[in-house]
């Protein structure tokens, strides 16, 4: 058995301890959750940036370039960068090939960068169940910028928009200039848009189409708080009052060539600008408030479900379901019978 690390070592930035903490958290062990409890007070400092877009769009290559610039900024101190790269698990075998590091080799040997690959382990929606917890560990360990690469397969990658402060949507040309493919939903979650592979012939077309779509589809952004709570919570979410009406952030659009590092500097400026925007308008705190309340809500619901499961007997459930299927009782009536 591997010996396990501890919170102090994670806080001190011990890389072996961080790696082990991530494993414990990912495997949902008692030790992992105790560690998260202990580290929570040290979280909330890092800037969480999501990178989403179809497989092959160039997310990993882009993350590599973004991290490189933050490590060697033209002005100011280098920023410590944590990277979480999520890839899908096979629904049949539970196995996964995690290949994002292949595109991030420029970052190896830099002790200010920590890269961790992560399989979805059955979670849908582009992230794994523990991605948010990974971000917390890296945050507590002192990584100031955390880049989260999503699976990018689904239509609705809203989970990343919930988790991240800043969401970058990466498109690439030649996905057919079928603009329907640029789904309204993906534009809604974008704080920053990138057309990567700008070296390819159809890039101009994609850029123009996206720009046209943006002008139409983005009259203004929802407030962070409203757009996070799209479904009803078990309790009325408590908003954080911010003093002024927020300025509108209009998502900028950048062409990049991430294999050659072109266009990345402007993108990085926008990432920094978006952080400043969030902080200046109270949006940073709003997002945090919304996210933490979502998390509390999820825990609450699963707690009640497990409490209920412990006290109901299985034959009762079978009976109720049987009667429901036979249409003897409606779903509402069945619920009453179960409680």
């Amino acid at each position, binding site marked *: 058995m591997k010996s396990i690390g501890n919170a102090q070592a994670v806080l001190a930035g011990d890389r*072996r301890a961080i*790696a082990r903490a991530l494993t414990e958290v990912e495997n949902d062990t008692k030790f992992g959750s105790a560690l998260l409890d202990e580290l929570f007070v040290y979280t909330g400092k890092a800037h969480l940036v999501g990178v989403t877009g179809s497989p092959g769009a160039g997310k990993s290559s882009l993350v590599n370039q973004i991290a490189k610039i933050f490590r060697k900024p033209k002005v100011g101190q280098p920023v410590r960068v944590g990277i979480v790269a999520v890839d899908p698990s096979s629904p049949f*075998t*539970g*196995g996964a090939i995690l290949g994002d590091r*292949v595109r991030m080799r420029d970052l190896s040997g830099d002790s200010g960068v920590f890269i961790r690959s992560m399989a979805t382990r059955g979670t849908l929606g582009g992230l794994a169940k523990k991605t948010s917890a990974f971000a917390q560990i890296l945050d507590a360990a002192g990584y100031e910028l955390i880049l989260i690469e999503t699976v990018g397969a689904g239509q609705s990658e809203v989970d990343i928009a919930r988790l991240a402060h800043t969401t970058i949507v990466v498109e690439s040309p030649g996905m057919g200039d079928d603009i329907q493919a640029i789904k309204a939903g993906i534009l809604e979650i974008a704080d920053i848009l990138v057309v990567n592979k700008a070296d390819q012939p159809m890039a101009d077309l994609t850029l123009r189409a996206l720009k046209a779509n943006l002008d139409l589809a983005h009259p203004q952004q929802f407030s962070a708080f409203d757009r996070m709570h799209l479904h009803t919570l078990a309790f009325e979410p408590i908003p954080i009052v911010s003093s002024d009406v927020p300025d509108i952030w209009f998502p900028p659009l950048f062409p990049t060539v991430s294999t050659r590092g072109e266009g990345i500097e402007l993108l990085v400026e926008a990432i920094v600008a978006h952080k400043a925007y969030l902080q200046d308008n109270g949006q940073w705190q709003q997002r945090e408030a919304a996210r933490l309340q979502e998390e509390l809500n999820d825990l609450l619901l699963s707690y009640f479900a497990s409490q209920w499961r412990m006290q109901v007997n299985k034959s009762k459930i079978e009976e109720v379901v049987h009667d429901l299927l036979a249409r003897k009782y409606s779903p509402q009536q069945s619920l009453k019978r179960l409680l």
Partner: protein
Amino acid sequence: MERKIRVLIAKPGLDGHDRGAKLIARALRDAGMEVIYTGLRQTPEMISEAALQEDVDVVGLSILSGAHMGLVPRILKSLQENGMQDVHVFVGGIIPEEDMPALLEMGVSAVYGPGTVTQQVVKDVRKIVLGYTEE
């Protein structure tokens, strides 16, 4: 639930063929493992750094260039320097029979020459990490 086995598949050295490495990666994935694939031309430091960050149980090295007797000790040393001496190292590729004992002596868990059946590797990884075989 059985715990997930995490494996790093790496190609140290200068040879540019990764067919074998990818074949093994897929076989391990199909056996339910999480395989971190890092691509060609990895230095010993890159391999041990990735093994550390990914907290893998196993490092699988694919070496076709004939440079295994030079590369493997450097990789083992680098793993040790990173506190990863407990990780199980497997070596596969074009490894002559007569080099195998020396590699095992250095601390490698298993060595596979040409013509290895991937299912054998899967079985060995399971056995070494979990400490038992299941049929």
